[in-house]
């Protein structure tokens, strides 16, 4: 079996709570909610054994953390959008897979650990995605953090470790990347009815990214990640990483069928719900000069070498 087929399809969706808590405030939020609902049905009928989430709103520092609590339960409140209400949750986590993912990550040189603590604060993006895409917990899930210092090599290896774990356990997965496109929000409170993408530049870049997704050009997007980071991302972390992880997990090529189910502003940021399904068609495969890293060797200690 082609290991690419371990992933049935991939989803890219935004972390903001509006589609979950207040879709009625804006037609755009409602469109996003409808897109989530459509994907919920597709996941249920996909035959997936697991939903694997990579969330950009779960930052980690000590390596890569993987949620392993079998039934995490809490009432979550977002730091910014607390006035929209609370998000009670109880999820069904595949602990066995979490441990297998950790082992696979360590085998590839990454520092990784599972977390399984009562009351652990699952992040807004993961809560929104799992609540909307898997509301009845019919399919077990797993969540992996996004290390704030990691860059391309580390993220690619983390994605490949996910493939290793899926292959080893023989599980079919739907993978979910939780991230905005442009992530600049308005810095003041707005009437949701007046929500729009923060700037024309952000909107144009978002639409270009969506073109790539629609054409199934995942590897091309992966190669564009550094440009995307510089152009339309607030510099909160080292790099724009979600597409790196998505490509490494699903397969680093352009053989996908893309579908944009919704693209709407979320307090100024670009929120898109996208499905990417492996296919035999390819659009413009190219060669790229960045290394395809298989094993993470750690820091290069550039500062220390400078003293020699």
């Amino acid at each position, binding site marked *: 079996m082609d290991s690419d087929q371990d992933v049935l399809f991939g989803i890219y969706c935004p972390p903001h709570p509006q589609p979950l*808590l207040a879709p009625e405030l804006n037609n755009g939020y409602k469109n996003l909610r409808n897109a989530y609902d459509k994907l919920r049905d597709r996941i249920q009928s996909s035959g997936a054994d697991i939903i694997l989430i990579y969330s950009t709103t779960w930052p980690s520092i000590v390596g890569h953390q993987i949620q392993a609590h079998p039934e995490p339960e809490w009432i979550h409140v977002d730091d910014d959008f607390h006035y*929209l209400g609370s998000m009670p949750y109880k999820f069904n986590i595949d602990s066995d897979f979490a441990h297998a993912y950790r082992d696979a990550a360590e085998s590839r040189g990454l520092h990784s650990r599972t977390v399984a603590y009562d009351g652990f604060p699952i992040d807004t993006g993961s809560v929104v995605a799992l609540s909307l895409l898997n509301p009845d917990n019919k399919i077990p899930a797993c969540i992996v953090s996004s290390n704030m210092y990691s860059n391309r090599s580390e993220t690619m290896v983390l994605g490949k470790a996910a493939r290793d774990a899926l292959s080893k356990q023989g599980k079919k997965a739907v993978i979910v990347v939780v991230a905005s496109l442009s992530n600049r929000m308005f810095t003041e409170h707005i009437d949701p009815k007046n929500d729009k993408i923060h700037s024309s530049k952000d909107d144009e870049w978002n639409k270009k990214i969506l073109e790539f997704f629609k054409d199934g050009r995942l590897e091309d997007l992966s190669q564009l990640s550094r440009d995307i980071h510089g152009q339309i991302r607030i510099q*909160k972390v080292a790099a724009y990483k979600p597409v790196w992880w998505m490509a490494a997990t699903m397969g680093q090529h352009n053989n996908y069928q893309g579908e944009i189910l919704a693209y709407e502003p979320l307090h100024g940021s670009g929120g898109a719900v996208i499905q990417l399904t492996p296919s035999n068609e390819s659009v413009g495969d190219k060669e790229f000069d960045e290394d395809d890293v298989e094993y993470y060797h750690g820091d290069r200690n550039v500062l220390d070498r400078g003293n020699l």
Partner: protein
Amino acid sequence: MPNKQASKKPIDKGIVAGHNGIESHFILHGKHTYSINAMKILKRLIHITVVATKGMEKGQVVLGCLAPHPPHLVYAENPEQNEPFSEGGWETLRWGYNRLARKLKKIDYDVMVIFTPHWATYIGTHFLGLPKFKSLSVDPIFPNIFRYKYDLTVDVQLAQEMHKSASEAGIITKMMTNPDFRIDYGTITSCHMLNPEWDKPIITISSNRNTHYYSGEVMNEQATALGEACLKAIEKSGKKVVLVSSHSLSHRHFVTESPLPEDMSREHIYNHSQYVWDMKMINMMREGKMKEVIDIMPEYTEQTIAETEAGGLTWMMAAMGLPNYPAEIYGYQSVIGTGNAVVAWDPNSQTREIVL
């Protein structure tokens, strides 16, 4: 559906409430106005105003604390609220904190106001707006060492006054009134280390991410405006306030952790340049050069990825009028590679000390 309770707008009861007993006097008078003629009411109101103005002392900041919040410090203290058990560690910082906590015991204050980077908001500055919060805080980064049961009280009245003052100064603000909101571990760690008895109310102020959205310079401007607005509210309230800026100095972490987190043989600063910058800042604090510290803050923050990026120190220094007297240095130590200093600014020259 939106949570209606959480959506409810905060109620501003105004400044004539609570602290000095004026509220009951005012309300009692209001209840009897129907039997008094207009002139008598007017004379009485003037009298109350004069008495209130003379009776209420201007509020003030009685101490400012730079209080780093690595959860490792609470973990090492082994308080009953924290579930994991440690064999100690990071004594230089903890003993410094312990000494500062003893100093605080001798200071008369009403409320601790804390600015935390771990309640990060992108849409303005938010203030805790409910009187009680009781729950479990689990650190999302270090859940293995910090699972703390908290039960704390908030001075909602002063929080509302700060919110109002900041809003009037043109700062985007929001009161946080969702009862399910979880208090961040930065607030809990700094407050626990400064006042383990939790016998004073607190106010938490979120950190607006101006450095990320704009630049270190914009952060300095915004945090300064917020500090000045908070000072106005404090002065108007008549309360004695301890300000807490909760953060590390240099803030590059190691991305691995030793099997025993408190193994001090593994602890050191991430790299030498971080250390040199931290020492530069601490020496300027020791020399009372806080204006200069704030002036170089953007460069320092960029060079050391410092947690000053959240704006806490700038906010506190602005509220304290950029002190030109020496800071009290209680300790400096690295925690998982980051540089941390416990420092205090005592406006009272009679009680100000040279600690280290």
